[in-house]
């Protein structure tokens, strides 16, 4: 009969736990899970209002085959490939520069971090002007340096590259701080003994710093890819997806379909496609990095 108080204790513990969880579960359930279910529902039904008959995967096939989706998917892929490696590499380089005895270290660290705390939607207005053809300061400088700057942000061939530049500007300081944290966890003795063995700076980086930063690189890369896939604010402000949809990303297309063209069925289906893509990407990256990470 000793189980009685035990069972009652267990029941009250469960009750306490769910009381603690209740507000969060209510908010998440009502405003995240429920909309997801609604979106899934409308993604498998006919778009015509009132009819709503079951159409299975028809909407998915239609979206996947649509010219707009293929264009946005291609643009997003180009954007991710342009922006991610550069951001991660620059962040690592910056962290290595900042990880020294340095006068004004706090200032430099804060300076490169500032773009991450200010509104991208607002700073993109400045970028739009700096990168405009003719009167833009940055495009002008690029021309002067002999770098083909094209028609600035209005160039259909270069628009994505300029958006990627803004992406790097926005995120590099944030990831650099994460790399700095990673660098701080590497025991100093490793470098001392490597130094005694006559390893040069490159060898120390290649055989100590880089492998031991594996966890950080994995974390930063996953974050960087997910952030790049979700690009919206500066696209909205700087190009509006143009010219001729040359910079329309997936999330921008989602916004346009849902809130400008009012094609809710298309938007809901596209939403689930983006969701599954991000899920698959994160999973693939996790698998890739978990096999390569070095413990110590």
């Amino acid at each position, binding site marked *: 009969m000793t189980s009685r108080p035990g069972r009652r204790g267990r029941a009250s513990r469960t009750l306490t736990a769910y009381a603690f969880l209740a507000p969060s579960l209510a908010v998440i359930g009502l405003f995240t899970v429920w909309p997801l279910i609604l979106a899934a529902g409308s993604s498998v039904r006919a778009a015509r209002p009132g009819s709503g008959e079951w159409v299975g995967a028809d909407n998915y096939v239609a979206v996947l085959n649509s010219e707009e989706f293929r264009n946005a998917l291609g643009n997003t892929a180009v954007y991710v490939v342009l922006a991610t490696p550069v951001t991660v590499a620059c962040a690592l380089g910056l962290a290595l520069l900042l990880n020294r005895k340095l006068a004004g270290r706090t200032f430099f660290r804060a300076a490169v971090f500032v773009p991450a705390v200010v509104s991208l939607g607002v700073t993109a207005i400045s970028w739009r002007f700096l990168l405009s053809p003719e009167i833009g300061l940055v495009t002008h400088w690029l021309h002067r340096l002999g770098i083909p700057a094209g028609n600035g942000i209005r160039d259909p061939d270069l628009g994505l590259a300029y958006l990627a530049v803004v992406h790097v500007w926005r995120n590099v300081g944030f990831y650099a701080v994460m790399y700095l944290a990673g660098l701080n*966890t590497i025991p100093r003795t490793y*470098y001392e003994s490597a130094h005694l063995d006559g390893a040069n700076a490159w060898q120390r980086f290649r055989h100590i710093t880089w492998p031991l930063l594996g966890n950080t690189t994995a974390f930063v890369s996953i974050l960087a890819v997910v952030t790049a896939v979700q690009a919206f604010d500066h696209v909205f402000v700087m190009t509006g997806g143009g010219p001729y949809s040359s910079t329309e990303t997936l999330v921008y297309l989602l916004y346009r379909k849902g809130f400008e063209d009012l094609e809710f069925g298309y938007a809901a289906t596209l939403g689930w496609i983006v969701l599954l893509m991000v899920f698959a990407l994160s999973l693939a990256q996790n698998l890739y990095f978990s096999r390569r990470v070095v413990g110590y």
Partner: protein
Amino acid sequence: MRETPAGPLVYAGLVVISALVLLPLGWTVLASLTPEAQIARFPPRVLPEDITFEHYREIRRQLPLARQFLNTLIFAGGVTLLSLLFDSMAAYALARLDFPGKRVVFGLVLALLMIPPQVTLVPLYEIMSGLDWINTYHGLILPRAASAFGIFFLRQFFLTIPRDLDDAARIDGASHLRIYARIVVPISAPAVLTLGLFHFMYNWNDLLWPLVFTTDPSMHTLPAGLALFMGKHVVQYGLLMAGAVLTLLPVVLAFVLVQRRFVEGIATTGIR
């Protein structure tokens, strides 16, 4: 390995990088003080010949900036306070209590971490207009009153606090509510503060969310108000830059004040 002293090359590199990074922000300030005719011209120049404050007077006439500032403060502040409370409660349950369904709840939190927030936007809009919550503060705030990221972040931190303290309190007959409020949360103050800064900055700066859920200019936040204003006054750059400076200034000032804690908060609690 913070040993290597920096040579002149490192300093030169850092100065150039910092200048490039700060360039758009510095240019924003300069352009806001430049007469319109001197901003848009070929060839473009960095420094204006004359200084004017006209843009600041004009933008205040054309946009309800004080109101939008208040909206942004209520929105970002409201989300931050509620989310810190709800996130920490959920994190306490996940870190300190054993109960059936714990793995399911934690799995849900992990899955939600990966969901791009834009995916739910369209159905959420339908729900919100059904509730008549468009253009209201609670409509802006409540859907963000709990975050998977916040729950995960605080759970990880709570797990690092030794259990001896709350075991002792348990023996003295303290309830879980008391342990949560008097022991676990106070000890976690640095993590809670860092998360609070994250929430506040993210929502203060967010564009898409207020763009979708407010349509009335008197309910817009500063970034949404300015982005929509740009759509109508695309060539008045001095005006836009004055608005941008007024929008960015509070955040930059706040960042200068707390930057040490903020940057270190990310460095220490961000990973590992």
